[in-house]
């Protein structure tokens, strides 16, 4: 069990390292060397050179890479071209919002998806099952900005049910602050959950159907255990594992969706930061934001893996 966790953790570190390496070289090997942008327009060659030295751009690429890695390990992602602040500080200020948005979406999807999937599988062919199937397939076709704009305009503007933009009313305290937080979170959250929920419920339904055909379900019923018990205890526990793994893999997609959602709802997370950084051509910030998101996703994935492992004795023992 420990071995499993350690192996997964090593793998997570490897993933992050590869992500860092790929982006580092990608950004430097693509045409339109972004590091040149740090040098402002009308400067003398001497000043340019001085700046290049200051940013370490004069060194061989591998040295730069090594420097970047050593700095990264110390939590330093460089300095933003535009905001002239440490990238880490900028991102850390935004990351909690994204974590909360994507994290709640993840949890909510699972919490809603489980009953939907189980119920649909248990009542195969009935109306709810058909809805889940339809919703599951449609989920793949939903374009996050479309949903987000729809929610923004209808629920946010026409109906005025939800606040628009921002993440919290800054003047609230205590319980009111939490309420405000969820009030602001609702629309971005739902636009993510709507997209994720259908496919997740459908996956769970498929897994449930597969599991319900297994001998151990028949055997449980053969022992006289009620269908409810076999469904929620014996079948679900087995069906949820592959679904959880899939959700883990989908985390990257979820975060991608968060980028779009945050952009539409002006939610102050890393996603909107990325959108702004694209507008600013702020490469260190973009790179840093991607790396932080990658780390987040990989860590979340690790957690999902460990939870799966706790639920699955075949891996654990």
């Amino acid at each position: 069990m420990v071995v499993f966790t350690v192996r997964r953790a090593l793998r997570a570190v490897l993933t992050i390292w590869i992500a860092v390496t790929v982006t580092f070289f990608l950004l430097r090997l693509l045409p339109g060397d972004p590091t040149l942008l740090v040098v402002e327009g009308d400067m003398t060659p001497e000043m340019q050179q001085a700046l290049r030295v200051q940013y370490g751009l004069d060194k061989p690429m591998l040295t730069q890479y090594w420097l970047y890695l050593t700095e990264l390990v110390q939590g330093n992602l460089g300095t933003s071209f535009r905001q002239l602040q440490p990238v880490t500080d900028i991102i850390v200020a935004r990351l909690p919002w994204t974590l909360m948005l994507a994290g709640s979406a993840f949890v909510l999807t699972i919490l809603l998806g489980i009953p939907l999937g189980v119920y649909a599988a248990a009542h195969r062919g009935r109306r709810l099952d058909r809805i889940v199937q339809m919703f599951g397939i449609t989920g793949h076709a939903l374009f996050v900005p479309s949903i987000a704009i729809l929610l923004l305009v209808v629920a946010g503007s026409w109906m005025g049910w939800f606040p628009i933009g921002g993440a919290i009313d800054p003047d609230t305290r205590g319980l009111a602050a939490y309420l405000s937080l969820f009030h602001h979170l609702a629309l971005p959250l739902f636009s993510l959950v709507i997209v994720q929920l259908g496919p997740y419920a459908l996956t769970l339904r498929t897994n449930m159907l597969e599991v319900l055909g297994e001998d151990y379900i028949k055997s449980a019923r053969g022992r006289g255990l009620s269908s409810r018990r076999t469904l929620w205890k014996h079948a679900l526990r087995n069906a949820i594992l592959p679904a959880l793994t899939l959700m883990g893999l989908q985390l990257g997609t979820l975060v991608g969706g968060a980028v779009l959602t945050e952009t539409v709802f002006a939610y102050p997370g890393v996603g909107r930061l990325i959108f702004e950084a694209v507008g600013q051509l702020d490469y260190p910030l973009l790179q840093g934001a991607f790396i932080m998101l990658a780390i987040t996703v990989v860590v979340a994935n690790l957690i999902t893996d460990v939870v799966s492992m706790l639920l699955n004795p075949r891996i654990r023992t």
Partner: protein
Amino acid sequence: MNRRKRWSAAVAGLAATLTLAACGLNEGNGEPGASSSGGAAATTLRIGTTTDVANFNPLQSLSKTDNWILNAMYPHLLRIDADAKKVPELAEKYEYEDGGKKAVFTLRNDFVWSDGKPVTSADVKYSAEMIMKYKLGNVAAKLTWVDAIETPDDTTVTFTLKQPYAPFAEGVGFWMSIVPKHVFEKAGDVSKFANDSDWIGAGAYILQTATPGQRYVMKRNDKYPYAPEGGAAVETVEYRVYPDVNTMQLALRNGDIDLMGTPVPASAVASFKDDQKIKLQEVGSLGFAHITYNVNNEHLAKQKVRQALSMVVDTQSIIKTVLQGEATPMVGPISPIFGEYDNTELQAYAFDPAAARKLLEEAGYADKDGDGKLDDLKLEMVCDQSNPNLTRVAQVVREDAAKAGVELTASCVERNTFLSRTKSGDYDIDVSQWAVFDNPMDQLRSTYLSSNPGGINYNLVKDDKLDQLIDAAAGTTEHAPFVEKVQEIDAYVHDQALLTPLYVEKIRFAYDGSKFTGFQPSPSDLLGMVTGYSLSQVKPVA
């Protein structure tokens, strides 16, 4: 560990994570509005803005939000009223002495820094000297002829000029922020001073907290002399960041904000007209939209290229469509607002892509590979993403230029980036909008003088003849010849096609009229509704 324990451990861990993520809600946001709830006076005015504050140093800041917040916090000698007249703010009055070679400002004695120190002539002198020393911002251009600054007493500042310059006092008085010497002095090199916390100001509102990406909270300065009896009704001014103009509009409709700091885009004006509670305030324009060519670019250095580019800009259609007719066309660099200075004999470059192409071919460009584009003529056009009108203009110009065989790329970037790129000359063509020109002479000096220190000569033009013309005009004190000279420059710049003027926009601001009233708007989109003076006069609707 048995199964049940594992489950509960997992759930507990999850709950803990969520709680932690939500922990510290609203902490570090400074004093909440609730804590200073002094009864009915605890009124908050929430203003939407598109960008964050990029720089808290008023001597060098650029972006709109910077200006809004810092102008309200740091007093100016003069302010501009609704009719674009300069009226006293920190200065009670000013007068020229010595045939215009001395400008003497008399300060009010009741402006006080928020740390209790009075605002004195020393602060004014310090501010001006620092701007001159480090060539900060466009004010540096206005101070070029200053020889010496004297402060005979705490309320008198005397600027000695090398030569008389009529718009000097108005220009400097209006543009220059006065900073507290005793605070800024400690920073040493003020050009590197971030000034990003513990703000000390003397304007109507003082910045309390800044949460980038979210909001900036300003508190009423109870000692602001221009506040109405009993202090400003609005105790707290809160700028909220809405990077997207749609969300800002929706937030206003929704009641999340009370005022849009940025003007309503022309395309959205109609949508606000049906809304009962939203009021639209129209203000005059002191600026204009234009296209500027960076003459450091080898292509744009050629007059014919610039002229040809002017010919692919269909200003009439742009006004009709993008601005929905709510704008005035202009020719040459002098806005029709300046009335007699505007050279009305100038003829706009007619929209004619075919002729433009011909002109370019005369200038030596050819389409040898037959792809319909003139070879090597590739230019990048930068614009400000947060200005919906101009991003659309850029798109239209791009397409029309293609008809003339010119390949333009439109880089509409985030506003602060746009400003820093244009400031550093990192662009070919710049589609932008001047916010405020308070007089034509200052405009010409700021924008075309090659010696202009820290100025806004975005053409980066170094034209001896133009320099001479400007200097000659600036030295002219008699009215009629002065007008003539300005018109001459207008014609010269038009012929050189250093810029293609687009339009003078009718600016409209939207605010929640059911909640607030009493704004004292100033012309231009930069000042608009949010000057410290204006905010201090706002009253809640009973």
